[in-house]
């Protein structure tokens, strides 16, 4: 290895075996930009090829070993030096020696446990990535490939509604109700606010969705509150006996599933904040936690006849499914 001439170096490229068929998911980076990454679920195998391409053909690359790792780690922004790895798998690709030409290595991490969802937040990041390292005496050559993991749940067995009476004695009494306590990310919050007593002059009412990211433990707990959404549900002054409906579609907002005490390092929780504002800008609010969960996509290969007809209204004439549903039915849905 020369110090003053051109030492040999290499480019590393990680290619997944199912790169053509695997779905990608959007994920925010730390600076707010969105990017697409390969999407994995818990238990799926991560396999692929590592292409090591020598930069200067003909020259040898001496190395202390080539390995590939699959890592799942939690990074607290205020403590960047300490990464907490909760998944760490290694495969050796080559023993210490030298590469005389560019080479490709196969790897497979079978049925990898991915217990938590990928998360990039205000003070903490949880990420999964593949990392290839070519060990060398002075400086290793490394390459990382980030992936995104989603955790899926199914409909909860018990999903009671939230119903509560709140108020200020003799001034304002309301009863609020939300139809569920656990919502999936594309769900709709259906609820109502019933006014029992109104002795203040209300100007309008809104519902906010707040994300609370909790990092740290014991005395050094830090809560970061973010208002994800503000949705006005009433404009004007209500009187006793009035019922205001709530219908809030969650799919329009950037939400993650509720994450409680992940690896004992952080939590991400969601709250509905009901806010009433009076004529003098005084705010009366009541926060209520909701549990968010991620539902798996259901892809229907066969659709009901009516759904096909409905689709055809928008799709136009070239529809291969039409041949299956050719019946004398009129388009009267």
């Amino acid at each position: 290895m020369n110090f003053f001439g051109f030492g040999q170096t290499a480019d590393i490229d990680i290619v997944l075996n199912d790169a053509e068929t695997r779905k990608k998911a959007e994920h925010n980076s730390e600076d707010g930009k969105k990017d697409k990454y390969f999407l994995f679920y818990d238990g799926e195998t991560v396999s692929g090829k590592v292409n090591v391409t020598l930069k200067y053909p003909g020259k040898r690359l001496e190395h202390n070993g080539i390995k590939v790792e699959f890592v799942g780690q939690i990074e607290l922004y205020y403590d960047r030096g300490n990464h907490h790895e909760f998944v760490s798998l290694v495969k050796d690709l080559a023993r210490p020696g030298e590469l005389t030409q560019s080479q490709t290595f196969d790897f497979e991490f079978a049925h990898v446990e991915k217990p938590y969802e990928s998360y990039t937040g205000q003070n903490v990041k949880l990420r999964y990535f593949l990392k290839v390292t070519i060990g060398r005496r002075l400086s290793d050559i490394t390459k990382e490939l980030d992936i995104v993991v989603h955790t899926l749940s199914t409909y909860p067995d018990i999903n009671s509604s939230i119903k509560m009476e709140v108020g200020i004695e003799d001034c304002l009494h309301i009863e609020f109700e939300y139809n569920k306590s656990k919502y999936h990310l594309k769900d709709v919050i259906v609820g109502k606010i019933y006014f029992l007593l109104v002795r203040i002059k209300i100007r309008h009412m809104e519902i906010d969705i707040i994300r609370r990211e909790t990092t740290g433990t014991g005395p050094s707990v830090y809560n970061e509150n973010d208002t994800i959404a503000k949705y006005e549900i009433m404009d004007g002054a209500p009187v006793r006996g009035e019922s205001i409906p709530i219908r809030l579609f969650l799919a329009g907002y950037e939400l993650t599933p509720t994450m409680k005490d992940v690896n004992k390092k952080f939590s991400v929780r969601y709250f509905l904040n009901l806010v009433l504002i009076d004529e003098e800008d005084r705010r009366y609010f009541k926060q209520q936690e909701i549990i968010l969960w991620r539902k798996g996509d259901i892809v229907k290969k066969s659709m009901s006849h009516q759904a096909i007809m409905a689709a055809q209204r928008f799709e136009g004439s070239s529809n291969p499914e039409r041949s299956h549903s050719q019946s004398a039915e009129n388009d009267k849905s």
Partner: protein
Amino acid sequence: MRFKIELCDTRRLNSKPQDLTDAYGPPSNFLEIDVYDPQIVGVGRNRYTTYEVRMRTNLPIFKLKDSCVRRRYSDFEWLKNELERDSKIVVPPLPGKALKRQLPFRGDEGLFEEAFIEERRVGLEQFINRIAGHPLAQNERCLHMFLQEETIDRNYIPGKVRQKDNRDTCACSMYIYFYITLIQS
């Protein structure tokens, strides 16, 4: 062709139909305070301005539904200080004290300049309406004394006012309190 079909029940939750007397009757939050009719009282250097403070309300916490008293600027100051000391409210600001206007050798009428009195009247009206509508201020004896008793007894015993028991609420058992914050614009 593959489609994702999401069916969510978005029908409204059931609710009790509203009583028509509630729907079309007078609202229970009527509260209006007028500050008007400035009058200059006294002679020479001991003159001061008083204002009529008239409150009309249907809130049960106020003993009188229609009251009328005369107050001067320092009475408003007294009320502001009492509330700042005894309640947890962030009290809205009063119009300025105008100390400069009390100095001699001004070209104008000083404290008794018409435009100034009008400006002050507006500020006092905004102040008293803002504070009288605050649920926590309504519990303070000083506010009730200010609005509904002919003279302010500065040696009074500060305290809280309890609601009379003839409530027009429906049967409410235990409930959870709201948080209130007052945002100063």
